């Protein structure tokens, strides 16, 4: 019996017809294993690892306060997460990460006052947390609800010690002195979706 070069599929020699049934079993077993592996991997790649987090309750705060970390919980994930109350990329690779936050004055809207929301990716060192990456969106009062959003791409490097433990925050602040600002339940959303491993050379 011999095998093909890469997939190691067995085939008998021309003068070797005595154990065809055994060889056929070998071929079927090998082909089945390879097909199963391929289908699993391709299904995993097509169903892109994604997690979505939202605030489950209304959030309300005055202009004197700044939220560095809005309370959000996972509302969808097709990958296993270590925690459900804050966002983490579950494994290394390139991640597309973004947020959307809707902010509404509960009373008087202060003309021209700012609204700001940001997304911060934190890593850890021996001395504490460090800011690895940050994006933000700033808008100004336009007579009602303001919608803020931004997105970015971040590569979680398996060889970077500061990337061994990462979490992601969305924060909010405003300058609406006339009244507090409310972020209704479900209107602070953080999402992350997988872009690829990044460690394989891809040529077609």
């Amino acid at each position: 019996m011999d095998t093909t070069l890469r997939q190691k599929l067995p085939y008998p020699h021309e003068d070797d017809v005595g154990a065809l049934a055994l060889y056929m079993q070998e071929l079927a077993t090998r082909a089945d294993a390879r097909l199963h592996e391929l289908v699993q991997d391709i299904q995993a790649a097509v169903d892109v690892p994604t997690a979505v987090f939202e605030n489950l309750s209304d959030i309300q705060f005055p202009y004197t306060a700044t939220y560095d970390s809005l309370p959000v919980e996972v509302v969808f994930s097709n990958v296993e997460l270590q925690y459900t109350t804050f966002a983490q990329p579950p494994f290394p690779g390139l991640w597309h990460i973004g947020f959307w936050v809707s902010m509404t004055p509960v009373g008087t809207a202060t003309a021209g006052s700012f609204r700001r929301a940001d997304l911060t990716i934190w890593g850890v060192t021996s001395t504490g947390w460090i800011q690895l990456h940050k994006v933000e969106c700033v808008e100004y009062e336009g007579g009602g609800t303001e919608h803020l959003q931004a997105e970015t791409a971040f590569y979680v490097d398996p060889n970077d010690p500061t990337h061994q433990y990462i979490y992601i925050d969305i924060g909010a602040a405003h300058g609406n002195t006339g009244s507090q600002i409310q972020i209704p339940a479900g209107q602070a959303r953080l999402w992350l979706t997988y872009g690829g491993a990044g460690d394989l050379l891809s040529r077609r």
Partner: protein
Amino acid sequence: MVAYSQPHGLPYQTAGDKRRDAPKVWRQVADMLEARLNAADDVRRRVQSPPMAVVRRTAPFVFDPFQPPSETIDGDGPFPFDAVLIDTDGMVDLSADARVVTPRVSGWYMATGYVKIASPSAGAGDSFTLFIRGGFDGQYIDSQRMSQLYGYNNVINQANPSARSTYYITATSMSFWDTSLPVITAFQLDLGIVNTGSLPLTITECGMAVCWVADPYW
């Protein structure tokens, strides 16, 4: 008489075929399965790790689009990068040109960029627009317009009147790339400014990610 499966044409023996011919037919089956599994492996590699590159610059530099380039930093943009975080398809060569990411495979690419700006002196009223330039938009691919630089991705971030130590601006869009067209510009990151009173700016960090997501035609 050997028959063939459909649609892949794998050979198999039928009643009356000689047992001694089985190895020859079997070898054909194994070789054909090998070729198809190899092709499937290529597809798997493609979806698991598509062409993508992430570049970054962490060394601060002064940016002023109205001044001539300095010796080391072209103040007029696009921004030069100093590190390649990932590059799965040979899209970046910092020694040849530190400002560009050049895809080698045609398709639609998700491009995102960001920039961190140290607090500009002018403060309120500043307006910055981050551009990711490069590629070609599908609707502009024709001989008359091929020579034009087409820039898009536009995010404006007005300065917060309250004190800020850093401004964070990001831009994202889907961009088209066709390797059969002459390269006018590869993917680049650049900044537009409305209030020149805030110049020059100190850029403390910038970065760009370019990731293949789809074949160019359907």
